[in-house]
């Protein structure tokens, strides 16, 4: 499914563009950002992958486990596509140091789960440097990693704890949901002067969608309305925006007209787009693949129950992953994932249908 038909952000569709995969949009954007600014470099494990033993030349065997960087080392060289040993704290720290001294590093953390290994560098250095040094510096660092379950990767390769990152002052967090938004958000992230974490859901990587050929950036902190509606607001982010659209289709058949908001950014958070929507629909269901406690879903509920309280006609509902790690076995994992049926059922209950 393509999500961008009703997209309100970016240059719109009276532009030339192509139907491409999310992964290709990602790779193309990295390429054009490398071209755009000579201070951009990418650091990560196996992001080219492999070196000829004799010539010491990079082989680009992997281009990263998700092929995000495939082909880049051939055009930009090992100075700008830097394969790193497995030492996330070390190379994220080095990337922060490089950002503090004039480069614009982009770090591929591979699986989102590995964020934990570099967590101190992220929270104590990337997020705090500008503030604790009184604004005399900035940290133009971008990180990306693949989050989410649904692919049989089990507990340590399926995390989606972007809520934890969004909690941290000094970090920005974006959650693209289709090829169009990943291009616009990744480009904006790399050009932004603050540390930005770009969360790529594994389930989106092979999704295709229309992407304008031209360069564009999606403003960090702006959500978008994927579908207008009147009866209930569904809020999604990353892959759950797809889930919300699926649910909206199912609801449509029951003559329930759902509005779908895709957050796109978790920090800054577009409170206004959510509040405005609730003012219209008076009901809200937040759909989030992260665990529920102290999550972005909780945050949306908190924002709405404070700032749109008078407009609420029904309890604020969350449809999230359970408070469990991600299980391996397929059936269990399916049960783990919040899906459009869960959303559908929740809306029906909410509307007392």
């Amino acid at each position: 499914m393509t999500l961008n038909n009703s997209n309100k952000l970016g240059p719109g569709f009276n532009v030339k563009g192509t139907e491409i995969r999310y992964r290709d949009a990602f790779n193309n954007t990295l390429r054009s950002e490398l071209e755009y600014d000579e201070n951009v470099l990418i650091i990560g494990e196996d992001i080219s992958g492999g070196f000829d033993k004799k010539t010491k030349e990079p082989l680009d065997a992997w281009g990263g486990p998700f092929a995000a960087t495939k082909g880049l080392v051939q055009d930009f060289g090992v100075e700008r596509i830097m394969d790193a040993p497995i030492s996330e704290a070390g190379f994220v720290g080095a990337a922060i140091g490089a950002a503090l001294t004039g480069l614009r590093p982009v770090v591929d953390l591979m699986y989102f789960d590995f964020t934990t290994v570099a967590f101190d560098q992220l929270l104590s250095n990337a997020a705090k440097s500008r503030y604790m040094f009184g604004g005399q510096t900035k940290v133009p660092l971008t990180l990306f990693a693949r989050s989410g379950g649904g692919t049989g990767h089990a507990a340590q390769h399926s995390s989606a704890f972007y809520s934890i990152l969004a909690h941290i002052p000094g970090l920005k967090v974006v959650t693209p949901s289709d090829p169009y938004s990943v291009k616009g958000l990744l480009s904006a992230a790399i050009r932004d002067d603050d540390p930005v974490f770009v969360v790529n859901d594994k389930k989106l990587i092979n999704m295709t969608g229309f992407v304008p050929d031209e360069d564009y950036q999606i403003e960090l902190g702006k959500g978008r309305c994927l579908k207008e509606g009147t009866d209930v607001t569904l809020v999604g982010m990353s892959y759950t925006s797809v889930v919300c659209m699926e649910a909206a289709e199912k609801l449509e058949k029951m003559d329930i007209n759902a509005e779908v908001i895709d957050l796109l950014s978790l920090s800054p958070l577009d409170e206004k787009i959510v509040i405005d929507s609730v003012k219209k629909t008076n009901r809200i269901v937040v759909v989030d693949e992260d665990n529920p406690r102290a999550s972005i879903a909780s945050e949306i509920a908190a924002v709405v129950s404070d700032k749109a309280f008078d407009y609420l006609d029904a309890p604020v509902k969350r449809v999230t992953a359970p408070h469990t790690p991600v299980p391996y076995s397929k059936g269990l994992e399916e049960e783990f994932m919040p899906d459009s049926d869960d959303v559908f059922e929740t809306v029906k209950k909410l509307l007392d249908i």
Partner: protein
Amino acid sequence: MITKDKLIWIYETMCRIRFFEESMLEQTYKGNSMGVTHPSDGQEAVPTGICAHLTEKDWIGSTHRGHGHCIAKGLETDKMMAEIMGKYTGNCKGKGGSMHIADFSKGMLGANAIVGASIPLAVGAALTAKFKGKEKDSIGVAFFGDGASSQGVLHESMNLASIWKLPVIFACENNQYAEATPSWYAVSVEDIADRAASYNIPGVIVDGMDVFQVYEAAEEAVSRARNGLGPTLLELKTYRYHGHFHADQPEKYRTEAEEEIWKNKDCIKTFEKKVLDQKLLSRKDLDKLKKNIEKEIENAVEFGLSSPLPPTETLYDDVYVNYSNDLKGLR
């Protein structure tokens, strides 16, 4: 001198690992397992030669490439195959999969999919042993790769184990690559074993393709540990025959010539040649043992395939021992 029983165990174990990995890959390609699987065939001599000195009271920590460690530590192949297939009869009731096989009753602390993260767990197991005054009976072994050697937690673990004199062995399986990245690129020292000097502990370079050499080096390290002399770092030079994971194409980053060199040192063939030459076991012995293992693995696959999936409600089980919130309602 290795007893005949031990020789048989070694041969069986190496074959068991080899056949298990081959069948496991076959099942993965057929779609009978989920996610990713990391085969360890080629490296069989390492867990075998080390675990030959361990009992169920000893503890090992393992990695994403953990099937060999599990098997050498005595885990049943049928439960392992079932786990990889996501079945309820698996070691972890289908919750863990290939990267998280564990059996605490066998002293197996679990495969771990965060590179380096299981190393301090083995140190902790050694701490328990020392704390209880039972180093003689119970030591820890941390298996990890050349890639993991770059993780800071290894440095911390070796320093801790050294100053606390813990009965633990750091077993670095240097299979030359971390994913596609060669160790000559990522590791700043020629031999990882040399880093032992940084912690004032012995470091030994071992031919990891020769189970006899692994056995001997491990014997010394285990004896040091059991006798209160503290940790040892072993670097076992080895090679994985397949790609990093089931779908990897290693020919993109390794030469055929290189693969050839290592395959010529194949641990099973080398073992066979030696025991036949020295008449320790007969060809008939070997054939029979091999056949039994083949059969065992076939049965394991059968067991896995015919086992039930976990009931859906088990999704909510075992997050905690006890928790006052209702986890079914908490989502």
